[in-house]
Structure formats: structure tokens, C-alpha cells
């Protein structure tokens, strides 16, 4: 369409009264919005408000129940992604759509019907050209399973560029990126906008919305709540539009009360199956009544660290648990989760991968709540009444949006899934609570609910370990922040006095040599799941 003259007044894409239901859930209820060429539109909304669903209908993944879609002023029928490509719509999905065993090139040319002979070499050449033009760094022959998260995202973006998409949709592209990577992405997006492309981006991070987009469209519980010019709004106004009421967005941080050593990690080292060091000589202490933040570039060993403590990773070294009841000190190193629990260690863990690890998507909320406690009680039979009550309590207390307690968790939106998980882990009244990126993908309201819960735990005397990516949040929520870099501790700072710049510096401290390697292997482990 590049050859075609763009009609300035006509939106690149316009949705009119789009509705979509899933069973009894109304995901989109008569939503209308539009975006013009040379413009970036943010779509904002609480978890489960139907953003992904709406975008998926533009991309041809879902098909609307009713409503119309116009591209450049013409009504179109998008029945499949193929149709979407025909209208030069490209989408980068919340969950990457890449084939693990394929190379970058293979993934990028996938689905294309180019003229002429099929030649990966020629395509790789074009990919290099595009990379150069936009300043990406990508090896076209690298296999996806060898890639880090940001590399994967690069592939996704080049995929869209390669197709010459005119309309670009990104669903929470920054959720897994470091701030540096995010800045790079935004620079590219701005360049694309200046090239006259229409861009729609979904993100829960309001500062990103404000810094990047020209307009913001807000969805609220499946309904369209309006569009505002970015220049004419601010964080609290947007939040209000999104949630439908005023909310306070500050984190109350209390002073730790009577902190005691709870978990003492001494010199642990972890190797991948290929023998690469993922953690090297990590030592620290987590204290009761305190939130210990862990900052670092994604894939620097955070996951291995938490998993080692939870008994899911083999490591060398010592992990000492100071039992407050008995005063005893137990080494948790190389114990299975079951053995750890049998030692009387009250350890809760909110893993990064909610549905892949923390919960069972196909089971209902009650059965998921039961995961932690099913072994309780004598005999060989299950006891279902207590978990049922607990489930209902969690739904009530955390305002989980769900038809009922017997709804499969898979059907819930990301935010609500997370609430179920955190609710369960906290209900076990842990002495140590570990959480990896607990608000990733959560809307602002839900995020603050989670922060509040962690603060409560802290006040109850739990040692909370919080792995986060948003430095502002870490600084506001935590008592101390430990920075991990390339599998090593780069330093620990007091969150009350430290600055973002200080932490950012620490985060890249050891990266010169080992970084590439570690992130690569971390990526491989991801892919192996």
C-alpha cells in the first residue's frame, strides 16, 4: 500500500461497535476506536478488560461476534491472520509466536509467499539490512531456543517489518524487557511512526503510555471508555478512567519490626546442564519483617536463585533456614520441595511462570488452591471442603473476577490468575515469601493490591523476597535491594537512600564478559519448558 496515497483524514484502522463473547464472558462490548497513520495509540485497561481480545480480532486470531472493522476507510472482513497481512496489519503478541527449533530467518519468512525461489540466504540478507536500518542486533541463523527474551522480541518486530506492515500492534511488548531494552524499542517505534505507520501498543505501565503515545484509548470491563490525547492527561486521570473510580497510587512503607535472620544463603553456585555458571558464589541474608528486593537484568540468575531456595534447582553451597519456632537451623540445599515442607519450613513461592508452574490451567480455582494443602490430613483421601472455603475467601478478599470458584483458571485473565496464585501462597502463612515478577502483566490496580499484600506479610513478620523489574516500585516498596548481575551479587543497597542510577549501574556491572552467555543459556532453559 506504500505506493498508494494515504488519505490524511481517514484512520488507518477503525473499529466500530465490536463485540466478542467467550461463553458467558463478554470480553468486548461494542468497542469502537481508531488510529491514524503516523500515530501511536496506547490501549489501556485493567486486566481482563478485553484489550488482547480486541487486538486479536484485528489480527485475525479471533472473529468478532458483531461489529465492523475499517482499514483506510474501507470495511474489511478479517477472518484469519492471512487476511490481516493482506491489509498490512502486523501484530506482536503478548506471548511470542515463534517456532523454537527454527532459526530467526525461518521464523521471519514463515507464512510469506514471496516471489521467486525460496532462499533463506536471500532472506537473511534482507533481515540484516532491516536490522541495520533500525539498529537491531540479530544473528539471522540463530535458533530461537538459543535466544534471550529480548532477542526473541527483536525477531518478532523484524518479522512485522519484513512484511512491510503498515499497521503495527504490540501487546504488552515491554513486560519482559529491561528499561534499556524498552528505551531501544521505543526509539524504534517512534522512527516507525515517523515513517507513517500506525501503531497500537498495549501496556500497563503508565509512564510508558505517557512518554510514547499520541493518544490513549481506555477499555473498562470490556467497554470502550473513551480516547484522550496523551498530552492532555496524566497518570491519575488515566487510572480513574480505567478503573472507573479514584484510586490512590502510593505505597506505604513501614519500618521493619524486630528483623531477624530467617534465610541465610551462603556461597551458592549453580550450573546449567551444559556446565555454564548461572549463579556464582551468591550469599545474602533475608530477614523477617523486611522486604528484600532483587533487581537485575532479566535472566541474570534470579530465577535459578529462587528455584534453588524452593528446592527446584540443584546448587552447591548452603541455604540455611532459621526456624523461628524451634530455633533450629536447617540446610535446604538440594532438598526437594516436599522435604523442605516436611522440615517444617514455611516457604511460599510465587514463580514467574504462573500457569506453567504455579497453577494448573485446566483445573478449577478450588483444585488449584488445594495444590499447597492436599497432603494435609490423615488417610489417603482428599479433603475438599477446606480448600473450597479458602478459595471463596480469596475470591472475595482479592476481588478475583471469575464466574465461580469452579471455573478453570485458564479462563481467567492474567491479573486474576495472579491473584489466585498470590492468594494461595499467602494463605499458607509463610515465614518466607518469594515472588518473581509478581505484577508482570498486571494492571495498576491489581499491582497495588499485590504490593499491599506484601506489605501486610512483612508486617506479620514474614521475610519477603521480591524479584522485580520496575526500579521505581522496588525503591518504593523494599527495605533493601540486592542487585544481581550475570549470576553474581553486584551489591546490596538501602532502598530508602539509593537511586535508580545507582542500581542501574550495579545491574550492568559484570556484564562485559559473561552476560551474553548467561542470558543465552537462560533463554535456552526457558525454551526447554
Amino acid at each position, binding site marked *: 500500500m506504500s505506493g498508494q496515497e494515504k488519505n490524511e483524514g481517514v484512520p488507518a484502522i477503525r473499529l466500530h461497535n465490536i463485540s466478542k463473547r467467550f461463553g458467558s464472558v463478554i470480553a468486548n462490548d461494542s468497542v469502537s476506536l481508531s488510529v491514524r497513520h503516523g500515530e501511536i495509540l496506547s490501549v489501556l485497561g485493567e486486566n481482563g478488560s478485553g484489550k488482547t481480545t480486541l487486538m486479536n480480532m484485528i489480527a485475525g486470531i479471533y472473529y468478532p461476534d458483531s461489529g465492523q472493522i475499517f482499514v483506510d476507510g474501507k470495511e474489511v472482513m478479517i477472518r484469519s491472520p492471512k487476511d490481516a497481512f493482506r491489509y498490512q496489519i502486523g501484530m506482536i503478541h503478548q506471548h511470542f509466536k515463534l517456532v523454537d527449533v527454527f532459526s530467526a530467518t525461518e521464523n521471519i519468512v514463515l507464512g510469506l509467499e514471496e516471489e521467486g525461489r525460496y532462499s533463506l540466504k536471500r532472506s537473511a540478507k534482507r533481515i540484516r539490512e532491516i536490522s541495520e536500518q533500525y539498529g537491531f542486533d540479530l544473528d539471522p541463523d540463530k535458533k530461537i531456543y538459543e535466544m534471550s527474551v529480548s532477542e526473541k522480541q527483536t525477531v518478532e518486530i523484524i518479522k512485522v517489518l519484513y512484511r512491510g506492515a503498515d499497521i503495527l500492534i504490540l501487546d504488552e511488548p515491554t513486560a519482559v524487557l529491561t528499561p534499556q531494552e524498552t528505551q531501544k524499542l521505543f526509539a524504534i517505534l517512534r522512527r516507525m511512526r515517523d515513517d507513517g505507520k500506525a501503531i497500537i501498543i498495549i501496556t500497563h505501565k503508565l509512564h510508558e503510555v505517557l512518554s510514547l503515545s499520541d493518544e490513549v484509548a481506555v477499555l473498562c470491563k470490556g467497554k470502550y471508555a473513551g480516547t484522550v490525547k496523551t498530552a492532555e492527561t496524566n497518570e491519575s486521570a488515566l487510572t480513574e478512567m480505567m478503573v472507573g473510580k479514584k484510586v490512590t497510587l502510593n505505597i506505604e512503607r513501614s519500618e521493619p519490626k524486630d528483623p531477624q535472620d530467617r534465610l541465610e544463603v551462603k556461597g551458592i553456585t549453580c550450573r546449567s546442564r551444559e556446565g555454564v555458571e548461572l549463579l556464582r558464589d551468591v550469599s545474602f541474608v533475608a530477614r523477617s519483617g523486611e522486604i528484600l528486593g532483587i533487581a537485575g537484568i532479566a535472566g541474570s540468575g534470579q530465577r535459578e536463585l529462587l528455584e534453588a531456595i524452593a528446592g527446584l534447582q540443584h546448587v552447591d553451597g548452603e541455604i540455611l533456614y532459621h526456624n523461628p519456632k524451634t530455633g533450629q537451623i536447617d540446610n535446604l540445599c538440594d532438598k526437594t520441595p*516436599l522435604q523442605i515442607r516436611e522440615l517444617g519450613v514455611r516457604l511460599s513461592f510465587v*514463580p514467574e*511462570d504462573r500457569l506453567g508452574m504455579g497453577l494448573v490451567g485446566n483445573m478449577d480455582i478450588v483444585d488449584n488452591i488445594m495444590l499447597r494443602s492436599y497432603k494435609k490430613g490423615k488417610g*489417603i483421601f482428599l479433603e475438599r471442603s477446606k480448600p473450597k472455603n479458602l478459595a471463596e475467601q480469596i475470591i472475595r478478599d482479592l476481588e478475583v473476577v471469575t464466574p465461580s470458584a469452579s471455573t478453570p483458571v485458564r479462563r481467567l485473565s492474567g491479573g486474576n490468575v495472579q491473584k489466585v496464585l498470590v492468594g494461595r501462597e499467602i494463605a499458607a502463612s509463610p515465614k518466607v515469601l518469594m515472588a518473581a515478577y509478581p505484577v508482570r502483566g498486571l494492571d495498576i490496580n491489581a499491582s497495588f493490591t499485590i504490593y499491599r499484600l506484601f506489605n501486610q506479610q512483612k508486617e506479620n513478620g514474614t521475610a519477603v523476597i521480591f524479584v522485580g523489574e520496575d526500579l521505581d516500585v522496588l525503591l518504593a516498596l523494599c527495605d533493601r535491594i540486592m542487585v544481581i548481575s550475570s549470576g553474581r551479587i553486584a551489591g546490596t543497597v538501602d532502598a530508602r537512600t539509593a537511586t535508580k542510577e545507582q542500581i542501574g549501574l550495579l545491574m550492568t556491572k559484570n556484564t562485559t564478559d559473561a552476560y551474553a552467555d548467561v542470558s543465552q543459556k537462560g533463554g535456552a532453559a526457558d525454551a526447554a519448558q
Partner: protein
Amino acid sequence: MPHSEQKVREPLFHIAKRDSIVWWKAWLIRGVVLLAALVFAGLVSFLLTKENPLRIYMTMLEGAFGTQRRIWGLMQNLAMLLCVSVAVTPAFKMRFWNIGAEGQVLIGGLATAACMILLGDKLPNPLLLLVMIAASVAAGAVWGVIPAFFRANWQTNETLFTLMMNYIAIQLVSFFTYKWSVPKGSGQVGVINRATHAGWLPSLGGHDYLINIIIVLLITFAMYVYLKYSKQGYEIAVVGESENTARYIGIPVKKVIIRTMLISGAICGISGLLMVAGTDHTISRDTAAGRGFTAIMVSWLAKFNSFYMILTSFLIVFLQKGATEISTAFSLNESFSDIITGIIIFFIISSEFFIQYSVRFRRKEAAAS
């Protein structure tokens, strides 16, 4: 709005997943589909035989229920199929695609036969029976655990592994039937302990098969409770859904995989015992009679619910018995029953689609512009 030169048509129909469906609607759908299947199968029968389809179905009923003996025969066959179906279920629930039940049953039968042949005159009968039970359970369990072990440790594809194990079991049975054949060289074991009845399961109240039926019903009930209400059953479900979650929560995944296949294999072994000691009193490579494969369909069609399996295995056994009767009555090739069974299963399989999805047809031309 201007006419676009090439108007894109809305697709003729669109498929969407149903939220859930009330139970009676689901059964109504199944009933209707089954009826459609019978009509279609009747049509096929008519085309191939030129017989009145109603007469064909009457003959089938007659063949299955005509006499008391046939009813007992039907129940016996049902019990055997049910037993294998129940046996494969825990593995399926764990998403372990055990298609090796045929081999596990055979090897259980082989162990039983071995005890009867080798120990028939050496042990008192009650002791012999105990040894037989232990041997068949152990043999079936071993056959189930071998693929489970590799799957648990190295993710070895179990569908293909268990499939291959079937043939190994078949050849082993072949090997031993030559070793034990009567007369020598005939490749047939003949009736084992025909004179002494050593190791034969007793007949209860004059009914040869009653004991089989009772044992299978007990196993079915126990399996239902085990899967639905026991902690181990819950572990099986979790491992089946997500091994990662299971590991995270502290379920010993490898142990559960191996334990479940041990149970699965052991019950298959018992099925072998019932077939050899309770029914045939001989062993051959056909002892399992394809039940290992049929059971997979039975279990799946019943959605892994042991009680529904009584219904689904009844359906299959009825079809087989009935079709045998058709071929006797109308002197048809027996393979006809496979065709009919295949057709009816195709229909039943497709009924699940209408239960899980709804099909929406194209809306009337929207009042667009």
C-alpha cells in the same frame, strides 16, 4: 459506502467454544449422534447386504441377549474389556498415552500360564492362586513400568514405546507357546491342567464367569474412588496437567509417573490373569484379543470416568457380539463387524465436538451501510 470491487464474504459458519453445557443436553446430543450412527450403519449394512436394517438390528439384539448364556457371555466379555479400560485410565489421566495395554495384558496372562504350567502340580491350589496373582500383577507392572521409567527420566515418547512393547510381549508369548506346546511342535498350549483344574478360578454359584465379573466391578469402583477422591488420584491429575507445577508443589513427578504406570500395568496383568485362569485356561498370542487397543477408545469415550466406561464398553461389546451374530445369520464376512464398529465410533467421537463447541452460521446480511 462505495462498492468494493471484491467484497469479502463473511465465512459461512464460525466455530466457537461453548462455556459449558447442562448435562442433559450433552446426553441428548450423544443420544442423537448415536441414533444417527445406527441409522448410518444400518444404511451401510443395507447397501452391502440388501437386508432390512431393522432385521439386522433385531439379529444383533438377539445375538447379544437371545439366551441366558449369551447374556452371561456378553457380561464376561464386557467385564474383560472394562477391566483393561479401567487399567489404562490412570495413565491417560496423567496424559501418559499408554497404548501398550495389549502387551501388559498378555504378559500378565503369560505369567499366569507359566505358574499354572510349571507349578500346577507342585503347589496346593490356594497357594498356587496366590502365586499366580502375584506373578501376573508383577509381570503387568514391569511391562508398564519400563516405558514409564524412560519417560520419567528422559521424556522418551511413551506412545511409541508402549506400542513396541506390545509386539515384544506378543513374541515372548509366541516363544513360550512353542516351548510349552501340546502336542510338541504344534504351537498351542492347549487347555492347561485340564484334569486337575489347578489354578483355575473357581466358579461361583455354578456360574463360571461370575468371579471375573465381581472382581472387575470391584476394580472399577476402586479406580473411580482412587482417581476422584484420593490424594494419589489428585497427584495424577496434576502431573497430567503440568509436570512443572507438580514439581513446584513438591509432587515427586518421576515417582508418580512410575507408580501410576505400575498400577496401570498391574491391573492389566490382572486382566491377563482373569482371561487365562478365569476364562480360557490357555495362553496364545491372541489371548488379549485386541482389547488393549479397544480399551483406549472405551476409556477415552467415557472421558476417563470408570462408571461411564461400563456404558461405553457395553456398547462396544454389544456391537461385536451383535455383528458376529449378523455374520452367522446372513453369512457375511466377519470383518463386517469391524466396519460397523469403526463407523459407530467415528460418530461417537464426533459427538464430543457438538458438546464442546457451538457452530454459528452466518448472520443475516448486517445492516452495514
